[in-house]
């Protein structure tokens, strides 16, 4: 597998043509995506034209963007101008946004070649990609296993070697969890580092776009390209970004790493073993290990499953059949709204809309939404306290390796528990990365997770680079 950095360099030197790279990507996809189903749609014509433009620029010696000629896949909840954006929902089937999201614009400007839009749990609600209205994605390491979710298609596209780089969104773990299950690097950046303009909202205060890559260095490079202030997103952070790539070579000498039992509690023994090995790798590289207890993190799951549905119930109100997407014609507008939403949304989306509507209702607001907000603050403060004594926290990304299809569909609670270790970073708005670190007893990939304080995505990358180097082969 060639990395994004290697590909960009080879194209720049003229050793590879962008067209041949794109052709290879589409050939790989057509050979194997029938069984994996990472993609919902492909943009071959536009991609080949863009690749030809890169080759022309190389021939002319024109300046090239840092991702010139690199094939990229985008989760199908990121708006692409004139290109169907479905959120894996029947309600948006056929909808073509009239605009590109900010991340898409920045990728185009960097010379990246967008080859396709990837599968997800409908509206990013799920942990297995089984909730896609257009059929599940399969884990490239074992087709009987889920790739994780909700960004399962983006994780599988990188794990299958279709593209070296893809983007997903992470609301409660939707990048890190599939990255762990599929054996890729997955970064959830600090809230506000990457513009959400053009990302179809699930839970606005938690959603964050981030990359899937095969190496930590590629994750750093993609942050250089897409992170940074965007005046179109009022929650975007208007500050200089840290040096993402510079962080890769710093090592962990002198760094205090908090080994957090609360990010391991309930993890399967093979997962826990890998986290212990990861800690040992960091210690051997000069880091100091500190046992840290942050018991408040356990409260995150309950708070998340009130806050995220509450915001979703409002964000998803606009799918009413009036202006775009599916419309079930009826005699009056209320009947039309109801029929459209009944037909257009899947079971999990409906479940969360109902949960969220209930949590915000008069008489229940304080007990549910209000209390969940207080819990969120509590977790943020608990993490702040933890970071007074350590630089980063280390834990598992997921309690287990990838599970089988249908294993958790009948029991939403067991599915929700998959997000236990990833949710705190979303609630706090902090960065976290999942790095592949060996396999489990079932030979499926395991990811370890590095959490850092807000706006310290560079610290995540710095530690992840050392783990990557020391990971079991």
């Amino acid at each position, binding site marked *: 597998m060639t990395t994004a950095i290697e590909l960009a360099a080879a194209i720049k030197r003229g050793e590879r043509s962008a067209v041949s790279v794109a052709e290879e990507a589409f050939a790989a996809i057509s050979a194997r995506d029938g069984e994996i189903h990472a993609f919902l749609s492909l943009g071959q014509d536009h991609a080949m034209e863009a690749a030809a433009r890169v080759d022309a620029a190389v021939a002319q010696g024109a300046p090239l963007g840092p991702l010139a000629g690199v094939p990229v896949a985008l989760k199908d909840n*990121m*708006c692409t101008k004139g290109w169907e954006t479905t959120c894996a929902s029947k309600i948006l089937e056929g909808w073509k946004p009239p605009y590109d999201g900010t991340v898409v614009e920045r990728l185009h400007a960097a010379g990246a070649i967008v080859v396709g839009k990837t599968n997800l749990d409908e509206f990013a609600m799920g942990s297995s990609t089984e909730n896609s209205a257009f059929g599940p994605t399969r884990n490239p390491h074992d087709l009987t296993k889920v790739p994780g979710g909700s960004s399962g298609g983006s994780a599988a596209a990188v794990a299958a070697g279709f593209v070296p780089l893809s983007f997903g969104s992470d609301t409660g773990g939707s990048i890190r969890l599939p990255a762990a299950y599929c054996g890729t690097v997955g970064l959830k950046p600090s809230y506000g580092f990457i513009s959400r303009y053009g990302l179809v*909202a699930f839970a606005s205060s938690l959603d964050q776009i981030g990359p899937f890559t095969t190496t930590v260095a590629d994750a750093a490079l993609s942050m250089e390209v897409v992170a940074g202030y965007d005046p*179109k997103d009022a929650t975007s952070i208007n500050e200089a970004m840290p040096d993402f790539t510079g962080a890769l070579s710093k090592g962990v000498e002198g760094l205090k790493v908090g080994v957090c039992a609360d990010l391991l509690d309930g993890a399967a023994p093979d997962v826990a073993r890998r986290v212990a090995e990861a800690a040992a790798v960091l210690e051997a590289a000069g880091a100091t290990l500190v046992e840290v207890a942050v018991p408040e993190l356990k409260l995150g799951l309950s708070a998340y499953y009130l806050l995220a549905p509450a915001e979703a119930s409002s964000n998803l*109100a606009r799918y009413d059949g009036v*202006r*775009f997407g599916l419309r079930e014609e009826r005699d009056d507008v209320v009947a039309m709204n109801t029929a459209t939403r009944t037909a257009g949304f899947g079971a999990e989306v409906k479940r969360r809309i109902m949960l969220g509507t209930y949590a915000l209702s*008069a008489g229940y607001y304080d007990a549910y939404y209000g209390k969940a907000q207080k819990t969120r603050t509590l977790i943020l403060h608990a993490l702040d306290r933890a970071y007074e004594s350590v630089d980063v926290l280390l834990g598992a990304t997921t309690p287990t390796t990838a599970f089988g299809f249908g294993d958790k569909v009948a029991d939403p609670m067991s599915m929700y528990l998959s997000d236990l270790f990833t949710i705190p970073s979303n609630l706090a708005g902090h960065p976290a990365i999942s790095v592949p670190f060996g396999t489990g007893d079932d030979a499926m990939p395991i990811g370890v997770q590095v959490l850092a304080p807000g706006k310290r995505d560079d610290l995540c990358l710095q530690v992840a680079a050392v783990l990557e180097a020391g990971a079991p082969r």
Partner: protein
Amino acid sequence: MSMEGYETVIGLEVHCELKTASKLFCGCRNAFGDAPNTNVCPVCLGLPGSLPVLNRHAVELAIRIGLALNCAVKPSNFHRKNYFYPDMPKDYQISQYDEPLNEGGSLELPDGTVIGITRAHMEEDTGKSTHLGSSGRIHGAENSLIDYNRSGVPLVEIVSEPDMRSGVQARAYAAELRAILMAVGATDGRLEEGSMRIDANVSVRKPGKPFGTRCEIKNLNSLRSLQRAIEYEAQRQVNLLEAGERIAQETRHWDEAAGRTGTMRSKEEAYDYRYFPEPDLVPLVPEEDWLAEIAASMPALPKQRRQNLLDLCGADDQATKDLVATVVDRDLDPLVIEATLAGAPAALALARAANELDATAGLPSGPSFARTVALEASGTLSATQAKAVLGVLATRPTDDPEAVAKELGFEQLSDDTLLTTIAAVLEANPEEWARYRDGDDKLAQFFIGKVMAATKGKANGKAVVAELVARRG
């Protein structure tokens, strides 16, 4: 049945469209009357993935309103008000809820009555529906067309305390509020275009008793409708109480043609808006120096401007007050002040401004208006001539009034011609002359009319009267 023994209690909610160049959360043009759905973008159409960004100029106008109404301007927050309605693209309205920008103010009516202001908060307007079908309302419509040009137009909602006690007083409040909103540059005040929309909360009670059950009358779009609707509604409620019935709390609409209110929806049908903090926006905290800058740039308000004119005229009789109110309402006070400073009599300048000037036809320049009034005051121009000159200046505002007078053939009448004409008029009307001599002063007007007719309006009325008085001896 009369209102005898009952007191009407009224509180008003006034929605004011802010006169900004662009909308509240996007860059689209804020304009009335453009072709439908031409001033729209992903944000104000509520397309998936779009995000709001707050318009700073709208905030400044909202702060001006708060300061003009003596409110405390505070750090505030936006909330989402969730309900399904086809002309509201996101199916929620971004509004301010428990943390409004302006709180706790007052408005003084021209008669000195002080009405409390609860709050003046910011929110976005909805689109506009046109229902095709017999009723003109959404129920029973065959087709509905929606124009989203108005979607996202900035509004400030000004909520009064229930301090008004009659339709006339409510009308005076709305008129004064409109004058204030126009004076601070927040709106053009065009009720018929929906720039100001008024909802009235009306209840009745026996004086000294607790408030009665209130009904809200929606969308009153003229001062006259406001007064009529309140008077009708109060009477309706009294009739119910006198008949031993209860008043149901409900929302009612005003039927202008039928002259009555009717039920729109009852309390049981009231929405649960599920307010929660808008996660796509950050708290609105106006900086101290910005607030100070806005406060320093506040224009004189109507009340102060009226007092200034009364002081200038040295009068406070009702007739002068009415002229002053008219002049200030039409923003003509600067012309009156300039003329007075240039030496023209204030009372005459006031009368001419109130009765002869019309901004829609065109206004004379300050010096031309001042000079015309001065020419009339000195007797060089008669009242009729001065009015004619002002008529010409409407379209040629900076022309020299004396040149205009000459052009109109208004050479000054020589004393000889005047005396000869008066003599001829008296000779032709001996009976009237005799009665006048016997003390019937009213006939002076008759002789002025005759002399004016004979001189084609060139005579000075005052000079005619002086001559009559002299001849009467």
